[in-house]
Structure formats: C-alpha cells, structure tokens
C-alpha cells in the first residue's frame, strides 16, 4: 500500500544543530513503512526546486497514523521544510523503495548497524523492529557517527531501545574520536562478538558507505548499504537514480528508488 496525497504536519522540532524531526499524519505510511524505506516530500508550491525530496522513515506511530523523518538543513528544500509548522500541508508519496532484509531467525545473528549523520533514522527503525522481534539488545550493535557531537542524531533513541550503541565523532567531542570504521574494526578485533554471525547494515554519506563496504569485503561480512542519489520521481520511471550493480558479464544500472535504496554492498560498483 502506498499513498500520494497531501498530509498534515503534526510537529516539526529541532533535534540537533541544523537538524529537525518532522512528524506527518499519513496513516498509510505510518502503517506500512518498513525499515530502510523512504518517502518523497514536497513543500514547494512552485518549481524551486523542481523535484520532491526523498527522506527515510524514522519513526512510525500506526495507532495515531503519524510517521516522522529527521532531516538536515542543506539547501532550498530543507530550508523550506524547516519553516513548516503544525497544521501546514506537505505532499507525501510513499512508502517507497525496498527495506533492509533481516535473515531469519533473526535472534541468531549479530546485527551491526553503522550510521553516519542523518543516516541514523532508518537504522533506528530497523533496531526497533529487531528488538520487537525478540532479538536481545546485546545482539544489536549500533555505531552512530557524526563530524561533531551536535550533529549526532537518534543517540538517545537507540539508548532507550537497550541496544549496544557506540557514539563516534570525528573531533572526539562525544564518544570515541575518529570514524565509524575505526570502531567497527576495534569491535571486530576485540572479538567479543561471534563474527560468523555478523550482519552489517549501513546508511550515511556515500564515502562512509564505501569505507564500511570495504571493511565488510575485507572481512567477508554480509553488508547492506542504503544508497543515496538524486531522486526525481522516486517511482522507478525517470531512471535518474541509477546505481551500478555487478552482473555476471559486467554491470547494469539499477534504480535506487525501487530496486534500492538498499543494496548488497558486494553488488555495488562504487566508481
């Protein structure tokens, strides 16, 4: 089930420097959105910018028919979105794209969620689902990174879930200093966790995704990445969101909006 309609903003509150969580009333999305899926949002009445913008679903409240996304104010669209208030209307299409796949029985795996900046929200939805599915918090490891502490999102939410979460900042202003991959390596080498049961899921800036994918490849660990591209339509028709994916005889272009945004790290041809 998908919807394409106007929806009401329930709340739009700051959650970090330059970052906000907007809550939107849309029962369809609140009910059907899966971890890793996204919505296309439109606030502009005209054509500046021309296209809608994709945002990953962060939290769902099926009971009251609301869902939310966390967004970083980057440019024209997100500046307009940040000005929206409770009661304002936005145009929403979704849920869109595929979801993170969780091998069953999920309890038997160690789920390693690697987030960068506003890549955290969809991973929170995944962690929540895992916990609700009965996966022990000790088997859900979250490595949540950002440049500075004030750019780190969802940290308290992960904490509330009772998962094992590690904060990482490039300037060391919160949690470990460095990059998510440093922590990933350290955790791996500490050996406290049964490697053969690792499953990595990652979402964040493309450079980080690539670094995590390299790590997973080096250690032969299964890894799912959430790819980010421009998404003019979000529905699979414009082909403007192509991702190069390996094939037997070379590569083919897949659509990040319907074949993705989640891909097996091994499959992606980074450049």
């Amino acid at each position, binding site marked *: 089930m998908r919807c394409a309609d106007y929806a009401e903003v329930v709340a739009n509150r700051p959650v970090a420097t330059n970052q906000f969580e907007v809550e939107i009333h849309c029962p369809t999305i609140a009910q059907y959105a899966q971890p890793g899926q996204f919505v296309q949002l439109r606030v502009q009445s005209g054509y500046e910018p021309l296209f809608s913008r994709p945002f990953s679903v962060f939290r769902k409240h099926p009971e009251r028919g609301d869902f939310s996304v966390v967004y970083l104010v980057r440019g024209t669209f997100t500046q307009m979105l940040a000005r929206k208030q409770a009661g304002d209307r936005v145009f929403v299409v979704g849920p869109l794209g595929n979801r993170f796949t969780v091998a069953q029985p999920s309890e038997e795996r160690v789920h390693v969620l690697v987030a960068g900046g506003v890549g955290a929200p969809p991973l929170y939805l995944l962690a929540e689902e895992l916990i609700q599915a009965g996966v022990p918090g000790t088997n859900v490891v979250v490595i949540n990174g950002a440049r500075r502490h004030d750019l780190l999102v969802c940290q308290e939410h992960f904490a509330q879930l009772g998962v094992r979460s590690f904060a990482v900042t490039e300037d060391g202003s919160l949690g470990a200093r460095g990059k998510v991959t440093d922590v990933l390596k350290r955790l791996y080498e500490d050996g406290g966790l049964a490697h053969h049961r690792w499953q990595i899921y990652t979402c964040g800036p493309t450079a980080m995704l690539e670094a995590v994918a390299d790590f997973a490849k080096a250690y032969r660990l299964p890894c799912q990445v959430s790819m980010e591209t421009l998404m003019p339509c979000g529905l699979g028709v*414009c082909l403007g969101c192509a991702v190069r994916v390996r094939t037997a005889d070379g590569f083919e272009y897949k659509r990040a909006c319907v074949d993705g945004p989640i891909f097996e790290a091994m499959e992606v041809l980074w450049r």
Partner: protein
Amino acid sequence: MSRVKMDVQLGPLHLQNPVLVASGTFGYGNEYADLVDLNRLGGIMVKGTTLNPRAGNPMPRMVETPAGCLNAIGLQNVGVEAFIREKLPFLRRYRCAVIVNIAADVREEFEQLAERLDGVEGVHALELNISCPNQARGGIEFGVDPEATYDVVSRVRKCTRLPLIVKLSPNVTDIQVTARSAVDGGADILSLVNTFVGIAIDARTRRFKLANITGGLSGPAIKPLALYAVWRVAQAVSVPIIGMGGIMNATDAVEFLLAGASAVAVGTANYINPRASIEVLEGIEQYLIEQGERDVKHIVGTVQRCEPESEF
C-alpha cells in the same frame, strides 16, 4: 464530467480523451498503476524502446535547473523483445491506448523495430523518436535534418500499418521544415516537443553536472518555446498534433490545445505529482464547462490575437 465530449480522433488513432503521458516519464505504466487509474488516461507513451537492451549513461544523469531539469538517461531500456514479453501483457489489461516510443541510431534499426511491433496485440501506435544521434551523420540528431527525417519516416512507414506518430526535435531553426518532411514521409500524427539541448556546470568543482555533458531540458521553463513550436507546426501541416513541453496543470494543457494541439502529453509533471495526468484531465473538463464548450475538439487551435490597440 460526462457533460463534455472528450474523445479525440487523431488521424487513424482514436483516444478516449486527449491526455497522454509522455515517453520516459511514466515508465511502462505498471509503476503508477496503484496511484493512477490507468483506464482514465487517453494513452501511455512508453519509455523509449530500442532493438537491443541499453545500459544507459553513467551518473549523474539528471540535474535541476530554474523551473526545469536536464536529463541524459541514454535511452536505458529493456529492448523491444523484453518489452513485448514482460511489459506489454500488463498494459493490455487497460483501456488506454499504448503508444510505443521507438529509438535507434541507424535507420535499419528503426525499420526492424517497426516490423517487430507491427500487429503485436496491445500496441496501438508507434511514436518515432528521431531526436537521437544519427550514427551515419556523425551523431547529429536525425530530427534536425529534413532529409534524414523524411528518409527514416518513409522507411518506417513502409514497415508498419500502425498509426505513425513522429516526435519532432525543437532544436532546429525552423520546425515547420522538419514537420513537413515528417508528414511527407508518411507521419499520421506529429508529437512535439522533445527536449531542448542544454548543459549545466558546477562552479565550485568547475565540472559539468552531467556525466554525458549535454542533456535535454524539460519542464515549465520550456513551455513558452514548446507552445511556439506547436503553434508554428499547426500553421504548416494538417495532420493532428500531440503537444507537450512543460505541462504541469490543466491550464498549461489548455494553452497547448488553443495553440493547435489536438491532444497533450504530460511529462516531467508525472515525477512531481504522480496524479498530474488525471488532474490535467479533470481540469480540462472543468475548463470546458466554464467556457461553455461541449467538445474538447472545438477549442483546438482557436487562440486569438489579444485585444489590439485601435490604430490612431
């Protein structure tokens, strides 16, 4: 809504209403089927189809520009066989006309495509996309060259009994010339406009924004130019015209009808609002009622000069 007649006869092609969706902007219909009632559309012009599958261009393939966008997808498509096998069966289930947009960079491929699709159940017309690089002429568009246009159209004409739509390129000095070539070659219908060639540059990185360097401009930005092209062609030829280029709402669509188009196609707007085509359809009906018109055909090409200042 049944108060106004909306069906149109475009030469040999009958449409239940004059609102189509433009090639490359609605996929093969299935992507929109849960959001749009395909049975309400006048027709679906499917993604440009080539003889063999095409991988398409490297990314980035699209970039936003003021009130528009540039695209350089590179005709990524599954190829005609996979289209017939995998895409067409779904489309057969619907009432709307299915128009196959065919593309090639050598003339023979156009002929083979037309032959292959001729008589295939569920295909109601062919749209010849001659805005693709003509290899024999060093990559310049077929569609900007009157001779090449005439030649490729007449070749295809011989290969099919299907209604033949020729999609004109706007990147020409005088579109009336290529329009006539297409009609002389045997086009039953003309569709226009395809995209305008442009580029975008990133000042910070000092690079082109598209991997392909050039792309095709579409969206609201081109509407005044597309309207002009339709109006000019309507003066030059007698075959029906399917107008497109920056149609975002019913008012835009009406402008194309007034300029001389017998039907319209919604393109880029489908990305912005999946229901754009339905809203255009409903809006045109509403407009006709407000204007006291009974039949959409009656407003085609009826634009008048604006109130002139009387001469002194």
